[in-house]
């Protein structure tokens, strides 16, 4: 399983959703590098940590997690967007980034992660 052992950064401001996401990723055999629920810690983790992939909730307490996405792009780290908004964010620099709309099934998550690994 290609996701096995991969280090993943979670950026999600909804506590329960973050917990379940952690469980799902752990069940996939991945390693959780960190779970950030606010922008500042998210940026910190994104800059500093060794990350293989990131799952970014676009909306963080009313703001956007784009700065984290930009750091990912800069570092060349693949990532996926998770959003409660119905529309895809795939414009401009983020074209081609997979977008998961909540609520998503674990299968969707796996699929998106594999896809993004394939792409990189």
């Amino acid at each position, binding site marked *: 399983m290609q996701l096995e052992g991969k280090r993943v950064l979670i950026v999600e401001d*909804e506590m*329960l959703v*973050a917990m379940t996401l952690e469980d799902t990723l752990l069940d996939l055999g991945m390693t959780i590098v960190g779970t950030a629920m606010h922008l500042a810690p998210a940026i910190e983790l994104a800059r500093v940590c060794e990350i293989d992939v990131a799952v970014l909730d676009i909306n963080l307490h009313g703001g956007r997690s784009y700065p984290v996405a930009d750091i990912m792009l800069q570092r060349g780290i693949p990532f996926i967007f998770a959003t*409660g908004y119905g529309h895809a964010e795939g414009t401009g620099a983020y074209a081609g980034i997979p977008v998961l709309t909540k609520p*998503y099934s674990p299968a969707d998550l796996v699929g998106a992660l594999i896809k993004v690994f394939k792409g990189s």
Partner: protein
Amino acid sequence: MTWWREHVRGEKLSVLKARDPRTLARSWLSSLRSRLVLLTLAVLVPALVAAGIAVYAGYLNDRAEVEKHLQETSRALSLVVDRQFGQAEALLWALSTSSQLLAKDYPAFDARARAAIRIPGTWVLVEDERGQVINTLLPPGSALPSLGNRDHWRGAAEGNVRISNLFMGIVAKRPAVGLDTLITAADGSRLFVSVITRADTMSQILIDQGLPQTWIGAIIDRNGTVVARNRDADRFVGQPATPENVQRARSGVRQGVWESVSLDGIPTVLALSRSPGSGWSTIVAVPQSEITGPARRTALVLAAAGALLLGGGTAVAWRVGRSIAAPIADLTFDAEALGRGVPVVARTSGMLEVDRVARALSAASTELRERETALQASEERLRATQENAPVAIAEIGRDGRFLSVNEARCRLTGHTRDELIGQHFAHVTAPGSLDDDLALFARHVAGEVDTYTTESEFTHKDGHQGWARVTSTAIRNDDGVFRYAVRVVEDITERRAADRRQKLLIDELNHRVKNTLAVVQSIAAQSFKGERDPKDALQAFQGRLLALSEAHNLLTRESWEAAPIERIVENALQPFRGSNHFDMDGPMIRVGPKAAVSLALAFHELCTNAAKYGALSAPQGHVRITWFLEGEARSVFRLRWEESGGPEVRPPTRSGFGSRLVERGLAAELGGTVALRYPASGVVCEIVAPLVIIEGR
């Protein structure tokens, strides 16, 4: 000159002179007064002319009558004269055949002759070669003159009676006329026998005829010498008649009527009749004045009357004309007033037709004024409506420029009316919307489209942008040609913003719902994880769902801004209230939505745990919840959950969802720390978090 001026109103005389006579005449004729005068003349003049002709015809008739009368009278007189002669002739014949005379028995003949004369003023004369032998004028036996000559024998012939011309009688010594003849006596000598009548006897005959006083009657002999005259016989008898009459007598004119001048110098109309027997002419003349006099008088009267009629008639016509023209002229004032919209009171001029017109003008004035008022009122309403309408209304000409704008239109873009009129309607349209606006308007003008609606962006005078919804309707004339467009503009800036806000809200709502579903998904996943009994799992799941729902209810009541911490705690504890005692204390803190939900779920876990294993599982169990602010600027929130009076606490062997949620999840969510301890007396949970995150600012 004044008359001209009066006629041709307001025209300078010099201008009049410059115009040609025809135009002048026409302008003169165009006046009512002139026409009435003309009418009067047209009626009077022919009448007068006819009267004149009648008078003249009458005169001619009279004259003819008179002439006829004259002629007849002269002829009659001529016959009288002839009769006179006839008598004398008869006497002559009788005497000239007397045997006594033939025998030259003068005394016997003399006596016979004297006895035979019956004509007054007449005598008989007989002459032989030597002289008079018989003269009954003288007394018998008188000495008789001898003949000077025998000239007067010339012309007389035997067996023939000759009437002599007038001569002066030798013995009578007065004018006389004789009937002569010659006879041959028995002894073969010739005798001149004459019956002589005094001329004044002839005159007397004339007088006896009873000619009218003024008439002149005369008898002239073959020489044209006046033999007898009814008037002034002494003067004129023996004198030649007037030269023309002398001429006529001598040339043997039979009869005729002429104009002449009498011997006493009176102009006359004269009739002459010549006796074929004697060759004498009888003249009857009437003074011309008698014939022409009356006619002339009539003519004069007629002329005078005519002049009076013409003058008076013209004056009357003029007057009447004025009395008609004046009311008519007054009508022009009424008409002008009508045109100006001033009320017209029907004037009475006494003239039926004019009054009718005046009444009609008055009625028309009233009607027009009413219509004017109604129209004005309607226009005012329209204008007021347009002006006060809350929507912007503008009228645009073919060139796209403002013809008129109402108040609302001025307010829309913040310009004054003066700034707008004459401007192109797209003067403040933002570049992005310009093309559409102009293209549609062009189609409007071209007649392709009657109405269109479009939305465009505009710039207000103060610089801010706005959006407008424009509905433009083309107004065309009867031929379908574009006259102007009416543009109704709605400021939809607010509406668009509201629409956008609504979209945002819906998106937000969608997001939240999605998020909440994701949370429920998580709760479900957590609740049904592991080897839990499905019934238990379901109960746990439902419990958590309800806690979430209550948290949402609370937030909804507070319009999703913030919920008081007290309410959150109460709600969470509510399902677990039994006979157990709860304790709450702490300052008022308004918790933001995210923190409120997280706290609600955390409290639910704590309660569930307490109800299963802790203070809420025993009747005497007690939970105490206290919170307060600490730290510099009181920026740290601290809350303590303390259970007591419950069964002995045994720390859990592994971390269940509840503890995980409380210790890790909540801590991460609130950006603080959560310590969950299990002292023997009862579970204690301490939450420390920055106030800003708690309040969700």
